[in-house]
């Protein structure tokens, strides 16, 4: 009975116009109660604890490796004068790419009136926030003198693409946080009503971030407006962060980077890997939190279609990127291109193309391939392929400078990351997953309030 009263308040809150009749209202309230109890954040089970433990352990190893790097300098990496950017930078590009998904699922879907995407918005936003945090951290890790990080702000030259990146990544970070936060507010109000089952500290945290939210019509109106504004602003900012990131390469003269295609090539790749990450996360959360009723097979079916579209789009930009230089085989690019197509990097290159784009497309083209499990597998392929793709964007080019790599020590002429680089990189990936896990533990992974509202709309 107590619950019913609670739910009455909720219904009032989110249906300010009082359009539901009293008789109807009670029935809906019971349905609402079910939704709420289904979607409340769940405590970690045994598997969850092991998962968190493993991720924390990987992060700690990464931290130890970073301590060594701080102490001895970047000499602990395998980067040298030619390959002066290694897996840190490719990992950075990977994180920036994944973070774009927040804008795709939340903003593009919302503005395009795609209703089915709403249960996925929180997953997408959480991934976006985790990824953009680690993109910023990993770029500091890559710096030779990280203690001078603040120089970027006090001595920044606006002419440098790095400063453009600093500006847009910061902007994107804040928009992403807000886009996660505003839609959370009505959910926090619901969470605050379960004082007993929430821990004391968590309860205080909820009150701190959301107790001002009373669910008044005015607050709903404001929040709606704010979210709309954020959705509109995040799209150009998202395009800018990844375009500018591509310009870090495309503003140089290097073979393989000197391309006008780079902005679009990066953006399309980013949407693909972001959508891939979302289907992977969807599958895992659906299993772990038993959300089959909310993340349905239909969602996988539709995300599968989205993935096909994005994979084909990325493939198209890849053709643009490689086919025309291949046709010309300019002297300065020949060695680089041959290295990718048939040389040292060929296995990785074809792996990234096949596993990252073609095989997922082939799986997802068929209706049977758009069931949850195959979509999940295709998503993993996309994400893994995308990581190696970023590596291929950074390293092969640096191993093909214009002047010969001759008058230098032998170790300068090739690159394989050191254990410290692997540890830090894996640590950052584990850290991002840890943030996603923790946010999913604290907040409902499916927006409760939105689900209830939609339920009501369909009932009507």
């Amino acid at each position, binding site marked *: 009975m107590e619950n019913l009263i609670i739910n009455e308040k909720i219904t009032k809150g989110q249906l300010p116009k009082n359009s539901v009749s009293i008789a109807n209202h009670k029935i809906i309230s019971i349905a609402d109660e079910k939704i709420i109890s289904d979607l409340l954040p769940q405590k970690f089970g045994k598997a969850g604890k092991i998962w968190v433990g493993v991720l924390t352990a990987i992060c700690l190893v990464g931290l130890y490796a970073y301590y060594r790097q701080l102490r001895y*300098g*970047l000499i602990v990496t395998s*980067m040298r004068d030619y390959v002066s950017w290694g897996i840190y930078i490719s990992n950075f590009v990977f994180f920036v790419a994944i973070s774009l998904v927040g804008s795709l699922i939340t903003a593009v879907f919302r503005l395009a009136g795609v209703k089915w995407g709403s249960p996925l918005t929180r997953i997408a936003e959480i991934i976006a926030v985790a990824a953009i945090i680690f993109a910023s951290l990993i770029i500091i890790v890559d710096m030779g003198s990280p203690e001078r990080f603040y120089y970027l702000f006090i001595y920044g*030259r606006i002419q*440098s693409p790095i400063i453009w990146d600093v500006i847009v990544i910061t902007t994107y970070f804040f928009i992403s946080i807000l886009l996660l936060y505003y839609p959370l507010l009505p959910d926090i109000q619901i969470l605050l009503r379960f004082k007993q089952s929430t821990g004391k500290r968590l309860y205080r945290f909820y009150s701190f971030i959301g107790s001002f939210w009373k669910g008044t019509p005015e607050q709903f109106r404001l929040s709606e407006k704010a979210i709309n504004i954020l959705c509109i602003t995040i799209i150009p900012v998202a395009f800018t962060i990844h375009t500018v990131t591509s310009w870090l390469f495309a503003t140089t003269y290097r073979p393989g980077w000197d391309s006008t295609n780079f902005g679009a090539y990066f953006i399309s790749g980013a949407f693909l890997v972001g959508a891939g990450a979302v289907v992977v996360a969807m599958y895992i959360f659906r299993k772990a939190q038993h959300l089959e009723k909310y993340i349905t097979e239909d969602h996988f079916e539709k995300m599968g279609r989205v993935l096909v579209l994005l994979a084909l789009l990325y493939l198209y930009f890849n053709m643009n990127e490689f086919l025309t230089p291949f046709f010309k085989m300019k002297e300065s690019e020949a060695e680089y291109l041959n290295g990718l197509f048939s040389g040292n990097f060929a296995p990785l290159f074809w792996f990234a193309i096949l596993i990252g784009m073609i095989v997922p497309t082939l799986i997802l083209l068929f209706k049977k391939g758009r069931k949850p499990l195959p979509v999940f597998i295709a998503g993993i392929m996309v994400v893994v392929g995308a990581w190696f793709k970023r590596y291929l964007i950074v390293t092969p080019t640096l191993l093909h400078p214009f002047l010969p790599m001759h008058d230098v020590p032998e170790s300068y002429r090739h690159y394989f990351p050191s254990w410290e680089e692997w540890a830090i990189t894996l640590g950052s990936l584990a850290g991002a997953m840890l943030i996603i896990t923790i946010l999913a533990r604290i907040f409902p992974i499916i927006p409760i309030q939105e689900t209830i509202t939609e339920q009501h709309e369909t009932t009507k």
Partner: protein
Amino acid sequence: MNQENNSRRDFLLTGIAAATLAVGCNSKKDAFEAGAEDGAVASGKKIKLLSVDGEVIEVDEAFLKPVPHLPPVSNTEARIGIPGKKFVMVIDLSRCKNLKHCQSACNHAHDLNPGENWIKVDPMQSADHTAPYWEPTTCMHCDEPPCVKVCPVDATFKREDGIVLIDSDRCIGCRFCMAACPYSARVFNWGEPDILAEVANQLYSAETSIPQKKGTVGKCDFCADMTREGMLPHCVSACPNGVFAFGDMNEDTVTNGTETFRFSDLIRDKAGYRLMEDLGTKPSVYYLPPVSRNFPFESGLENDKTQNS
């Protein structure tokens, strides 16, 4: 030793360049200090000097007054450069036999981390059937420097006199400049440079590029400190074959220390060119093609092996 070095340098800086450097070099630090006091008594030890009018004169050691050590120019001055100058270098490929004296002189003068080279000498061959030659490369000190364009914190800069320098106290180690430089001229101090503590503890000067610091980038600086004193960069004076000629484009003169050329004539007569002209970087380093060579290409191979093993 360092102290003594400094006073020796001051001695030169008084404007009366020591004709008999050897004597100056041997003189003890104490003697200079004694000379600084008023009412010094002649020690009887004469030192030969070159006067400003070019005459050799003898001065008693006790009357020589040491000039306080000229501090390296301030950061602001180092960023402006020497007004009215436009430094250029001409590298004559027909004279190079990969001796690498340029490289070792440079490494020594700038206290570089062992294994690091600001000057590289590469065997080049344009096509399979064309003749190979040795090509030393320095920083090109481009007039449109891609490295300066991309630097996010203004740590690398282009001066009025054409020299591109690095402020290691500013550099954040992002290495964007290394990616941007098509000549691969830049090197990075990946770890703590293996240099003497007394060198490492000096205040950094952009003109001497000393000391190199962990986590910052370095490169050929055209020996900006030497040019300020009207002297030639170390690579130029170290090369016994006169491969490098250095000078001021505004004076239209370059010299390798023994021969002096009119820059425009040299470039015209010997068909000088710059590397990767098509990129639009406008280098300050010109090359003379490897024609009528002084040495066969093979004469440099031995040295290449020993230094590259």
